[in-house]
């Protein structure tokens, strides 16, 4: 909402600077989002009087002028190059220091600053300007000549009516009363405790109700139109509005059209009441019918667009057809034209929800609909109508027909709300007196009746539809008393909050990943439906997506992580190591278990991807690319680092279209997710050429793990290690051999570590050598050599028989 300070000053004698007024408005809840000084560009320009001109001694095309810049001042000498300069003219003069918005002599038209200068040897104390140089018109043929009666010395900004300051107010949706200059003045008057000067509106209804004999109003849908008034203005002449009106409208951001329409806009920005002027002679039957639209009916609004109605809209009609979309926009068929002589002026209160639905469905937002949606004052409808009718008569040479047709079957009364002083202070943490509280409420237009020392009843004005209960009045008190004047306290009771174990474990997880070289990514949670379907057959889609690429909620973290991998590979990254934590989404059928909202499952997951070289280029290590052992090692190290050891891995044999080398992860018997290598089909989809290794699993079971770690003790006797190597068939899994060794060795074996793997011709085809370091730890004594040899023998025997292995001599 644009507020003109000049306009505001018509109602309020506020003398503070614009900056201070802006501070006050912001402090009472009308945030000044920006401030614009309209005359800023014309600072340093005044009206000058050319007393005489003479030819420049050194240049044929230049004149030397004597110009008076103040009514009683000494004339100054100014050199001018315009052909049309002449003695007796009133002209715009730029003084030294002023910035000329656009130079005629500079091809790029850059601004320049004036200074006292010698032009071809003659001193010049300023510049007489053309329209084009001032940036207010196109004419550059010569200087601009102002009307003879113009006062000498008047700032040019004032001459052009640009000595105004416009503030852009961010009016919150609960304050429709401040979508007008009078409304803003009312809040300021409450702050400054100075009265508002309301426009003088004479009663025009003195001479009987002639209007009722000229027209009628029938409201068929009073729920959508609780009040409708019609006034008639006769013998109008449609023409341009006077300067003062055009200036104020322009300052408020409105485009002047003609005197009739301009008045309706002016009064809307003055009172907040939208008005509509019909050409009465174009209304069939010269009367108004307010009814719901017929389904399928089509209607052409003022802007020339034709809309199809659903039947839920409210229409303003004449005897035969629709003439306006109530509260939104008038129709082309009844608008004011240059030929209009009789005006029917509508001022009404429409149901906010009806207007809002119509405007939203048709995609039209007008100044009128904006106000009706938020709620205008049903009891100011008539005053605004009288104000506008008088102004129209005044500016168009017409006359207001006495009387009004006012359909208002169930008047809306102010709401009465009880306010307790104790409640005010308990809520705000203040010690305000009843005097202060009732003073504030009264100044804002609430009628306050005292019940007892601590209680009042407030009749809240109908221009404040937002005020419904006690807390709303408390807010009124708080904002006028000043949020910044309420003390701040931190003395409140300290609440003990149980530290969340899951939260700590989560930060252990992310901290570990960061320490181990992973960059955390934050990626999109919406993706295209086709890719989502690859990951889940029950992905959740949005009904109104921004685009097809952002249609479906991610059923897995991997796809958006792959997007990040592709992005970085395309930009030459050597190593990509990302992790991300976030939610993934799936739909579940009717009665299946859900997370929060029935029908939907949300899981909190950890995803990671590794692609490219496993480390930075270095002089001491050969570089290699990531492989499955990197991701497997990362996952297991991570889980062990946060104390999870009940992990079971499932080695899937088959690859699918998404991944290969897959390993399933189970924690405490619960399947949580998967790691592996992305299939080429999958990486190809993201245009990634390098292999990508990934892991993705639910964090739920990870974070809900057990409490503090428990010390398990360890053996007092030294451990001994023995190395054993076997030649086995290539198909034999190291993990299986490892398990056999542990089993055969029994409790005394405390560790089995594969440390060498190779194939070679001398081993025979289809064979490989697997070497293990076996750690033996006795619990109750030092072992003898013979005992250790026995353990090794048992291991060798079991591995040989179970896996067809042959002991290899090291």
């Amino acid at each position, binding site marked *: 909402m644009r507020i003109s300070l000049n306009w505001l000053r018509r109602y309020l004698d506020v003398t503070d600077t614009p900056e201070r007024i802006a501070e006050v408005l912001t402090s009472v809840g009308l945030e000044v989002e920006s401030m614009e000084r309209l005359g800023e560009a014309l600072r340093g320009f005044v009206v000058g009087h050319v007393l005489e001109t003479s030819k420049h001694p050194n240049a044929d095309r230049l004149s030397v002028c004597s110009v008076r810049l103040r009514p009683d001042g000494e004339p100054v000498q100014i050199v001018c190059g315009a052909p049309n300069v002449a003695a007796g003219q009133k002209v715009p003069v730029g003084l030294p220091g002023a910035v000329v918005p656009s130079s005629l002599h500079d091809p790029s038209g850059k601004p320049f600053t004036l200074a006292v200068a010698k032009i071809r040897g003659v001193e010049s104390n300023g510049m007489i300007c053309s329209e084009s140089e001032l940036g207010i018109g196109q004419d550059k043929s010569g200087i601009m000549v102002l009307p003879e009666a113009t006062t000498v010395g008047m700032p040019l900004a004032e001459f052009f009516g640009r000595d105004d300051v416009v503030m852009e107010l961010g009016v919150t949706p609960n304050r429709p009363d401040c979508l007008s200059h009078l409304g803003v003045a009312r809040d300021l008057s409450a702050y400054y405790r100075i009265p508002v000067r309301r426009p003088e509106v004479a009663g025009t209804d003195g001479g009987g109700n002639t209007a009722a004999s000229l027209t009628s109003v029938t409201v068929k849908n009073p729920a959508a139109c609780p009040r409708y008034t019609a006034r008639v203005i006769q013998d109008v002449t449609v023409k341009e509005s006077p300067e003062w009106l055009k200036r104020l409208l322009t300052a408020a951001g409105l485009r002047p059209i003609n005197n009739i329409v301009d008045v309706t806009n002016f009064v809307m920005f003055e009172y907040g009441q939208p008005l509509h002027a019909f050409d009465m002679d174009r209304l069939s039957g010269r009367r108004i019918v307010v009814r719901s639209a017929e389904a399928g009916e089509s209607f052409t609004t003022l802007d020339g667009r034709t809309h199809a109605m659903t039947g839920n809209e409210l229409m303003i009609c004449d005897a035969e057809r629709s003439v306006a979309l109530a509260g939104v926009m008038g129709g082309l068929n009844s608008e004011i034209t240059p030929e209009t002589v009789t005006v029917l002026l509508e001022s009404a209160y429409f149901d906010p929800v009806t207007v809002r639905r119509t405007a939203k469905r048709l995609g039209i937002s007008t100044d009128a609909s904006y106000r009706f949606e938020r709620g205008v004052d049903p009891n100011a409808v008539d005053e605004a109508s009288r104000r506008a009718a008088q102004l129209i008569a005044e500016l168009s040479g017409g006359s207001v027909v006495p009387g009004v047709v006012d359909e208002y079957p169930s008047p809306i009364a102010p709401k009465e709300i009880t306010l307790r002083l104790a409640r005010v202070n308990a809520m705000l*943490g203040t010690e305000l007196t009843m005097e202060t509280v009732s003073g504030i409420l009264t100044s804002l237009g609430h009628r306050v009746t005292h019940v007892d020392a601590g209680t009042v009843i407030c009749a809240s004005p109908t221009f404040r539809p937002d005020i419904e209960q006690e*807390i709303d009045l408390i807010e009124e008190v708080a904002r006028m008393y000043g949020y910044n004047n309420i*003390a*701040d306290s931190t003395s*409140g009771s300290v609440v003990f909050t149980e530290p969340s174990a899951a*939260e700590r474990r989560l930060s252990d997880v992310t901290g570990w990943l960061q320490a181990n070289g992973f*960059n955390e990514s934050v990626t999109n949670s919406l993706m295209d439906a086709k890719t989502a379907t690859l990951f889940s057959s029950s992905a959740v889609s*949005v009904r109104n997506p921004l685009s097809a690429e952002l249609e479906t909620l991610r059923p897995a973290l991997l796809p958006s992580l792959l997007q990040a991998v592709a*992005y970085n590979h395309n930009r030459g990254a050597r190593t990509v190591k990302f992790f991300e934590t976030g939610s993934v989404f799936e739909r579940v059928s009717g009665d299946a278990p859900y997370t929060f909202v029935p029908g939907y499952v949300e899981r909190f997951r950890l995803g990671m991807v590794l692609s490219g070289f496993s480390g930075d280029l270095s002089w001491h290590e050969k570089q290699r690319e990531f492989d499955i052992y990197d991701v497997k090692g990362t996952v297991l190290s991570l889980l062990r680092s946060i104390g999870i050891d009940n992990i079971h891995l499932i080695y899937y044999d088959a690859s699918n279209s998404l991944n290969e080398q897959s390993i399933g992860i189970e924690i405490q018997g619960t399947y949580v997710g998967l790691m592996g290598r992305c299939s080429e089909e999958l990486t190809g989809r993201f245009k990634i050429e390098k292999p990508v290794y990934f892991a993705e699993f639910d964090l739920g079971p990870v974070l809900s793990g057990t409490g503090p770690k428990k010390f398990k003790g360890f053996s007092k006797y030294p451990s001994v290690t023995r190395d054993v190597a076997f030649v086995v068939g290539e198909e034999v899994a190291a993990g299986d051999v490892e398990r056999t060794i542990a089993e055969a060795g029994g409790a005394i074996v405390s560790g089995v570590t594969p440390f060498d793997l190779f194939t070679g011709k001398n081993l025979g085809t289809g064979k490989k050598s697997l070497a293990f370091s076996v750690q033996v730890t006795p619990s109750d004594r030092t072992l003898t050599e013979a005992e250790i040899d026995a353990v090794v023998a048992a291991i060798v025997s079991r591995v040989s028989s179970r896996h067809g292995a042959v002991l290899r001599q090291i």
Partner: protein
Amino acid sequence: MMTDKIAEIRSRIESAARSIASSDDLERFRLEFLSRKGLIAALYDDLRTVAAEQKPAAGQAINQVKRLAEGTVESLTARFSQEKRSAGPSIDRTLPGRMVRRGTRHPITQTIEQMKAIFVSMGFGIEYGPEIEDDYHNFEALNFAPNHPARDMQDTFFIADDVVLRTHTTPVQVRLLERRTPPIRVIMPGRVYRNEAISARSNYFFHQVDGVYVDRHVTFAELKGTLITFARSFYGSGIKYRFRPSYFPFTEPSLEMDITCFLCSGKGCRICKHTGWLEVLGAGMVHPNVLRKSGHDPEQVSGFAFGMGVDRISLLRYGVDDIRTFFENDVRFLNQF
């Protein structure tokens, strides 16, 4: 007999030690004396045959011999390994060390972590809720009337008629109020969605940290105190701030908090629209309708709630000029944090 044997081994050790000239010689020495089947092991085996009263003395003598052999191995191992190394390239300390590459946390989560840490130190717990939310928790329970213009502020993604992608993290507050009795004092970080075109300044998803405190006798003054404490520890103790009345359907009185623009120190710049102030959070007293809807008597308990956007604050704090940069996840960007 035993004593002689020990003395003989000792002299063999001494003479053998003198003739060790290479690491191979040393290994042969180790095998001869110290291996499991070496001479010293044999001495220990013989100890079993010695008379009980002589055992301690003999055992001690064998131990001494063993230490002699071990000492020889130790000192010579060090010498040979040094010689061996000096045969390779010499140490060049100007070569890069073996670096340990550390990763990074995303700037958005770093901001959230900092906010969490401050609120946790002020006694707030941390709670999470769903991103797919029903209309009731996202709007209705928060006092949004079905056709209230406030819904203009939130253009929403719909999943079904009454299921949306949450437009704020405040619904988590409702879920908490529904199942817990006050005192409740938590913050609720998370991702939220608005159906907005993507540009340098806005995105369709962003992150919020909301907070709520409901108890007996919670006041507006305490809300101010809490927000000031937070703002001072997050933005710096020297900041200036102001509170402005504002409007949210679920709080009343409502406020917005501005701090001095830290990009221009309050002089006015493009970012603060030449006002010198930056809006950093919205807050207010929990609306009585909200308390009532979730089963609490507003005459018995009161509370405050607040919320702040993480992305915009991160943008300004880290001097990033395009919000999309955060979600491209370019490692050259991430590695700077």
